[in-house]
């Protein structure tokens, strides 16, 4: 079949979404060619704000890399601007002379920042906020200069200002009016927003109008109409956008504010040409948010695929601000008039404000600040025109007010109807998400994103999607799918398999796979590692560890770094050391020319940049100096952090360092479901931060408090108190017993904190405290498993074990 040629001008969000929708409907219909002025694949423009705030990287916001174009047979001309459309010959011509012929053309050239025509606006350092180039400029400026001025206190301006502030600049936001974001917020909400941004260090000049930009080549200051001046090394203009109609106009397409299109997204001048995104005007409106563009994309794709049944009739939009820590939602008409009534809730102390505008018992608009969980519900009521008279009294308290004391989003999303929109950007409803979760057995946010696109654009609904996920797969939901299988290779759960291993005396991986009806011959990286651990835990003296079922860090006994080199961390028991030991480490570092050394948070020394082939020799030298592996690379006992303690510290109540050394001697080498850290503090001042460790010992005058299940990291969890004991011997016994109970009970890759939250502290207390015989048995099993575990893996390899792992084969070819 002869394929028609489709050309897309503008490799941005709307254009490429149209192609994605088209490929779903008619993958083979066209030869597709894309021209993009920017030298990249297709990226998520709205995430430039988090990139500027260092919360995301450019890489994380790429939507379709260049490989995507190749895989879909699309010719991508990146970095090429189209300067002419010859409608008579149906050709587009780029500035470098590239010509492409089209049967259908899509114009998706987006918009350009509106730059105020001020004297001096052409100086270096005066930019808009639109693309990767602008973000690069801002980041580069922030690293050299101090003063940033953002003109425009709207959504974009505030996101830019927040990012620049995060980069360490002094930021002043200049706004013409007396309230921020006047198109989205009413005065009280705007005032709360301004206050909280000011508290973070942002400066505001309200009701200021810029007169001139001063400086030589580069901007140095900004002068206002009232005569005042402020210093400026960077000026970001965020006063609005202008549909980019230049090309459309020159091709003779009818334009007003944007290129005018019909309900089928065809230009009204030439039906062979579609236009889409921010460059168009549809029924008088030029949109500046992605949700409408994505709807337009669906319609255009439908027609391009020759289905011919879709119409675009406009979109009602809502807005969220992407500044981490500030929750803000706005939709519809929030100012009201003499026909409308307002319902308002304001709690300045807790920073919450809600206003809902009603007319004839229907929601016309809403502004929420501080607590936005119900935003999507109000937005839904507004779009559906629901009569709210029945629940007007409690409307402000949200959908799930009855008996819900806290702001618990989990229970609130549960009460949303299936047609409630969760992801505004991509128009995904609760029902779609729940269906995808249950039918496709999805368990992670990424999976939900991949299948439904929910939360994949601006990300502000991530919390809602996570709650839905928790609720849908969690234990108390009526439509719960089967409990989560260990991995895709089997239908059985971690617990089924752990019990089965013991009950049926399964001692090898093939035996487990056969018993539990594995669907793959060798398993996958998830289950191989888990099974290897489960078998090792169950049969510590018999099971032969399978090196090929360990992640490379554990196989090579070092952490692989981003360049493929490894790190070496020798164990320093309790963080104690001698000058001889330090000298030995220094000698090794010199001998192997270690490029970087660092004292870790675990109180030992990390040497980076070691080539894999060098590892055994280096270990041999360390081993000769008395060091053993620090297991900094493993799902294993890592370190025992200690404070100074009674030996030197004037507050110390017990010998925390001595106890730390004993604990590390007891536990080192132990393989665990996940990494495992201990700490001992000599008094409740807790200098060793023991209350965020898997086990933390806090010494007191009368003995030792044992705390368990703490975690630092992304989600901090403070430990629970397990008990208090009187002697060091008891500390060791309880610690060993706790380690073993965790080793035998937790799922592989489950740290103590989520494990305790899953099984409950009571279960742990019962196992260890209530039954002394059980505790002693656990401790006994721990000691047995430690015997093989404390054969130092480094020394073994330095002496020749697993030599092939570390020796490449050299070929002269």
């Amino acid at each position, binding site marked *: 079949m002869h394929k028609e040629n489709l050309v897309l001008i503008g490799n941005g969000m709307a254009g490429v979404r149209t192609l994605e929708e088209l490929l779903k409907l008619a993958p083979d219909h066209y030869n597709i060619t894309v021209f993009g002025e920017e030298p990249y694949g297709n990226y998520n423009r709205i995430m430039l704000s988090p990139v500027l705030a260092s919360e995301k990287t450019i890489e994380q916001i790429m939507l379709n890399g260049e490989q995507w174009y190749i895989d879909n047979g699309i010719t991508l001309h990146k970095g090429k601007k189209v300067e002419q459309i010859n409608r008579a010959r149906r050709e587009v011509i780029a500035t470098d002379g590239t010509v492409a012929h089209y049967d259908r053309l899509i114009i998706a050239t987006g918009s350009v920042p509106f730059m105020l025509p001020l004297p001096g606006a052409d100086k270096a350092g005066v930019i808009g906020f639109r693309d990767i180039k602008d973000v690069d400029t801002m980041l580069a400026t922030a690293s050299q200069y101090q003063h940033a001025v953002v003109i425009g206190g709207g959504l974009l301006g505030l996101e830019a200002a927040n990012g620049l502030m995060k980069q360490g600049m002094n930021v002043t936001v200049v706004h013409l009016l007396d309230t921020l974001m006047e198109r989205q917020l009413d005065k009280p909400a705007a005032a709360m927003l301004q206050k909280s941004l000011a508290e973070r260090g942002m400066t505001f000049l309200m009701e200021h109008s810029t007169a001139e930009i001063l400086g030589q080549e580069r901007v140095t200051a900004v002068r206002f109409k009232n005569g005042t001046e402020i210093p400026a090394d960077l000026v970001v203009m965020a006063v609005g956008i202008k549909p980019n109609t230049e090309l459309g106009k020159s091709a003779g397409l009818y334009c007003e504010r944007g290129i005018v299109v019909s309900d089928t997204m065809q230009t009204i001048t030439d039906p062979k040409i579609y236009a889409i995104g921010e460059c168009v005007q549809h029924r008088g409106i030029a949109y500046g948010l992605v949700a409408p563009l994505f709807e337009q994309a669906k319609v255009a794709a439908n027609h391009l695929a020759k289905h011919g049944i879709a119409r675009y009739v406009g979109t009602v939009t809502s807005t969220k601000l992407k500044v981490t820590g500030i929750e803000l939602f706005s939709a519809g008409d929030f100012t009201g008039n003499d026909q409308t009534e307002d319902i308002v809730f304001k709690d300045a102390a807790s920073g919450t404000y809600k206003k809902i505008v009603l007319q004839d018992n229907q929601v016309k608009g809403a502004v929420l600040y501080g607590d936005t969980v119900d935003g999507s519900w109000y937005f839904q009521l507004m779009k559906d025109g629901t009569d709210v008279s029945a629940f007007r009294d409690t409307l402000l308290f949200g959908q799930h007010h009855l008996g819900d004391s806290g702001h618990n989003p989990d229970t609130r999303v549960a009460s949303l109807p299936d047609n409630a929109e969760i992801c505004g950007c991509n128009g995904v409803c609760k029902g779609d998400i729940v269906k995808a979760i249950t039918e496709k057995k999805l368990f992670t946010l990424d999976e939900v994103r991949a299948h439904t696109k929910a939360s994949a654009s601006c990300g502000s609904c991530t919390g809602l999607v996570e709650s839905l996920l928790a609720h849908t797969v969690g234990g108390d939901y009526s439509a719960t799918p089967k409990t989560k299988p260990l991995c895709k290779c089997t239908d059985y759960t971690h617990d089924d398999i752990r019990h089965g291993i013991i009950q049926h005396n399964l001692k090898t991986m093939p035996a487990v796979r056969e018993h539990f009806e594995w669907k793959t011959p060798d398993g996958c990286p998830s289950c191989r590692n888990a099974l290897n651990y489960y078998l090792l835990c169950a049969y510590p003296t018999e099971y032969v560890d399978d090196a090929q079922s360990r992640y490379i860090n554990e196989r090579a006994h070092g952490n692989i770094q981003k360049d493929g080199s490894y790190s070496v961390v020798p164990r320093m028991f309790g963080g104690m050391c001698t000058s001889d030991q330090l000298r030995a480490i220094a000698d090794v570092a010199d001998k192997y020319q270690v490029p970087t050394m660092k004292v870790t948070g675990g109180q030992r020394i990390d040497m980076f940049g070691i080539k894999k082939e060098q590892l055994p020799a280096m270990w041999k030298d360390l081993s000769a100096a008395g060091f053993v592996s620090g297991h900094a690379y493993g799902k294993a006992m890592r370190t025992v952090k200690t404070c100074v303690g009674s030996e030197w510290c004037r507050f110390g109540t017990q010998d925390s360092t001595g106890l730390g050394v004993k604990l590390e001697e007891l536990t080192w080498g132990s393989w665990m479901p996940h990494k495992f850290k201990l700490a001992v503090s000599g008094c409740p001042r807790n200098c060793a931060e023991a209350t965020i460790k898997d086990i933390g010992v806090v010494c007191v005058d009368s003995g030792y408090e044992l705390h368990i299940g703490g975690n630092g990291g992304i989600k901090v969890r403070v430990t629970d108190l397990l008990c208090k004991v009187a002697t060091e011997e008891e500390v060791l016994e309880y610690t060993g017993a706790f380690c073993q109970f965790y080793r035998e009970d937790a799922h592989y890759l489950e740290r103590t904190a989520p494990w305790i939250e899953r099984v409950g502290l009571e279960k742990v207390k019962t196992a260890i405290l209530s039954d002394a015989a059980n505790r002693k048995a656990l401790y006994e099993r721990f000691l047995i498993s430690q015997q093989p575990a404390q054969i130092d893996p480094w020394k073994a390899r330095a002496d020749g074990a697993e030599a092939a792992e570390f020796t490449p084969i050299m070929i002269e*070819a």
Partner: protein
Amino acid sequence: MSKWIEVVELNKIPVLGSRLIKTRDTDIAVFRGSDDQVYAIRDACPHKGGPLSQGIMHGSTVTCPLHNWKIDLSSGNALAPDHGCSNVFAVKVEGGRVFLQL
């Protein structure tokens, strides 16, 4: 045409594991499946060049140790949802010895 070169004995490659072959121009990972099928692929992940020889092998796939891309060893292609491709080399086993075509 390029010639076959003997690189290693089959039983010196761990089952479901690999050996790293360094040639003058490039590093090549030679993998051995649980069925003794042998694969050779450039030791660089299409994502960010991660050393595939250090990954975990399963079936005829290896998972890259750096960011968990899965690469099909017979074609060199990354499995969905990722996209990318690494060179594969012709490889054969004769009399318990592994030969690479270079």
